[in-house]
């Protein structure tokens, strides 16, 4: 006779219901199945929705503009930490691609975004990043029309990697490019240098220093549009990201086969960035920016462009930092604060704190 306690009651053949996993990213979110679909509709759509994206087809279909040339750019974004004073990877991913289009004279219209998520990533982090992307796309006046998500095993990605591609239209009459600088041109810069690089480095916490610096990451297309109103014949625009203004000026000098001569005393640096650079042995001229633009314009437009820039919040502190000359071609020269001259070269590799 069986004991009462051995009796088994069967309530019907029901497998345990799978957990929804709506709090962290698991590998199933990248399977392409229902979980992927749920992640897209619950997490991605609320932030990024627009009619083109919601159609949910394999490719987004857009109408070609009636005139102008297309500008297309793509940029992968990896940043640690994901959030830092002044920005985060989402804002960076939008601004990075928008700025690459804008500095070619294009009006950015559409972005696509591809996400690599690390297994174990809390969903609320992803939501925060998407909210930030939403805000940045509104700021820039662009929409995300296609996207993709994959999940990498834990340890094989650093939280979130985002690749954005963008398409913009260059209105007729604009002709900017790195090879267009001409002797006599003025070199303008939209504001103080080095904020993004120092903000991220400080937020990383590895070097145990604190700096009251916020990243300047911002979409620059609004600022650039008003600059074109002041001067339709801008020669060169570039956003001085990794390698800083020094590297950007070197690229332009080489592409245009001209010399760029800058005056150190005119280069704006905020006191906290200066202090951090002094401490770490960095030169702010080589530190990354994500919300600054270098413009090379015909000399006669110098004041008009500066005035237009200063009327925009992202160009308030715009200054003329130097000029373009014939010789020595391909080189950037700097007049130092005490009146000496030196060549400004590109950064050799990773910027390293000096020993003493």
């Amino acid at each position, binding site marked *: 006779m069986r004991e009462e306690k051995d009796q088994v009651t069967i309530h019907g053949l029901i497998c345990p219901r799978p957990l929804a996993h709506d709090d962290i990213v698991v590998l199933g979110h990248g399977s392409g199945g229902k979980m992927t679909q749920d992640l897209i509709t619950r997490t991605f759509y609320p932030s990024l929705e627009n009619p083109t994206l919601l159609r949910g087809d394999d490719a987004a279909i857009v109408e070609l503009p009636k005139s102008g040339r297309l500008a297309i750019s793509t940029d992968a974004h990896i940043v640690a930490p994901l959030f830092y004073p002044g920005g985060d990877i989402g804002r960076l991913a939008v601004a990075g691609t928008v700025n690459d289009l804008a500095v070619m004279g294009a009006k950015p219209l559409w972005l696509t975004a591809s996400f690599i998520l690390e297994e174990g990533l809390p969903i609320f982090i992803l939501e925060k990043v998407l909210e930030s992307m939403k805000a940045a796309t509104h700021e820039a006046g662009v929409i995300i029309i296609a996207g993709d998500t994959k999940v990498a095993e834990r340890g094989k990605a650093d939280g979130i990697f985002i690749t954005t591609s963008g398409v913009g239209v260059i209105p007729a009459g604009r002709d900017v490019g790195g090879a267009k600088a001409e002797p006599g041109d003025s070199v303008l810069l939209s504001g103080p240098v080095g904020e993004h690089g120092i903000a991220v480095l400080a937020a990383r916490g*590895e*070097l*145990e*220093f604190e700096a009251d610096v916020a990243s300047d990451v911002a979409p620059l297309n609004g600022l650039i549009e008003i600059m074109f109103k002041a001067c339709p014949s801008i020669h060169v625009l570039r956003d001085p990201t990794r390698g800083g203004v020094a590297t950007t000026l070197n690229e332009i000098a080489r592409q245009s086969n001209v010399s760029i001569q800058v005056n150190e*005393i005119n280069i704006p640096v905020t*006191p906290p960035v*200066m*202090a951090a650079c*002094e401490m*770490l*042995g960095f030169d702010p001229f080589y530190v990354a920016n994500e919300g600054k633009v270098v413009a090379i314009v015909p000399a006669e437009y110098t004041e008009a462009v500066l005035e237009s820039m200063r009327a925009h919040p992202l160009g308030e502190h715009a200054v003329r930092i130097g000029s373009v000359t014939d010789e*020595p071609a391909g*080189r950037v*020269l700097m007049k*130092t*604060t*005490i*009146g*000496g*001259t*030196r*060549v*400004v*070269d590109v950064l*050799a*590799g*990773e910027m*390293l*704190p*000096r*020993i*003493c």
Partner: protein
Amino acid sequence: MKYVTEYRDADLVNGVLDEIRRTVTQPWVVMEICGGQTHSIVRYGIDQLLPPEIELVHGPGCPVCVTPLELIDKAIAIASRPEVIFTSYGDMLRVPGSERDLFSVRAAGGDVRVVYSPLDAVKLAQQNPDREVVFFAIGFETTAPPNAMSVSQAQVLGLDNFSVLVSHVRVPPAIHAILGSPHNRVQGFLAAGHVCAVMGYWEYPPIAETYKVPIVVTGFEPLDIVRGILHVVRLLESGEMAAENAYSRAVTFEGNKPAQALIERVFETCDRKWRGIGMIPQSGWKLRPEFAAFDAEGRFHVADIQAEESPLCIAGLILQGLKKPHDCEAFGSQCTPEHPLGATMVSSEGACAAYYRYGRVEI
């Protein structure tokens, strides 16, 4: 920025430069001993603003540059071990060893980390009791106190997973070596302000006396450097072979006594090989026997590693002030900051890197 901006003031610097021009009557060769000063001189173009009578030569005061090749090889051997977290000041990572650098160790899976202070490495050892944390303790008298402090703290904390790979060097024996060389051209010295902030400058009057050269303790900002040069030129012109302090806002005659006591407690002097120069007697510091447990060379059995320098590199002659970087055939061609043949091209304080970076290639 307070205490920085005023020392970069063009008018003040030009005032001192004028005074130097008024004072100088004949050619003088002056060596700035410290790499930090070399960096400032080329960064601000100070050498171009000096009267032609004054020739600056760049001394061996870059800690990264003079760290011997075999020590880099030892660091690489230790950093490659799976149980090790290897920590270092930033610019040591790019210094080429015989075959590779610490960056490539990291790329191959080694755990190599940049720290800003050796005390961060001690913290890492506390946080990772199952790993061996090694700190690359190099540098002059400036980094010796924090490096000594890390060993002292590790001892107090009873950490048995922390050790240091030591290659400390001292300035005064190097000055002796340069002045005692039969090829010496140096007639006056700018002594390194930061080193003197720790050690004082009581060691210098006897050297100035013995070799009949003036030595002036000098800071690092443009105004500090031109003032140091003005002091040296005045002493040279008047034939007064003394040691003077032109950096009194940071340096006293005795220096920082507690820091010196800490160094004394943890380190003892030893003969030390300088990259590019060779052995200089009594020019280094090593751990005292009572701290042998913290010596990474012993712990990881790397004491026997030997290495030979690249035959093309003339870093040794440059560090002694006998050649300029652009006198080297490899400068700017086979040897660049991206692919350095010798350590003077690696560190931003190295004379070759400073020349390359700030364009002392003829333009």
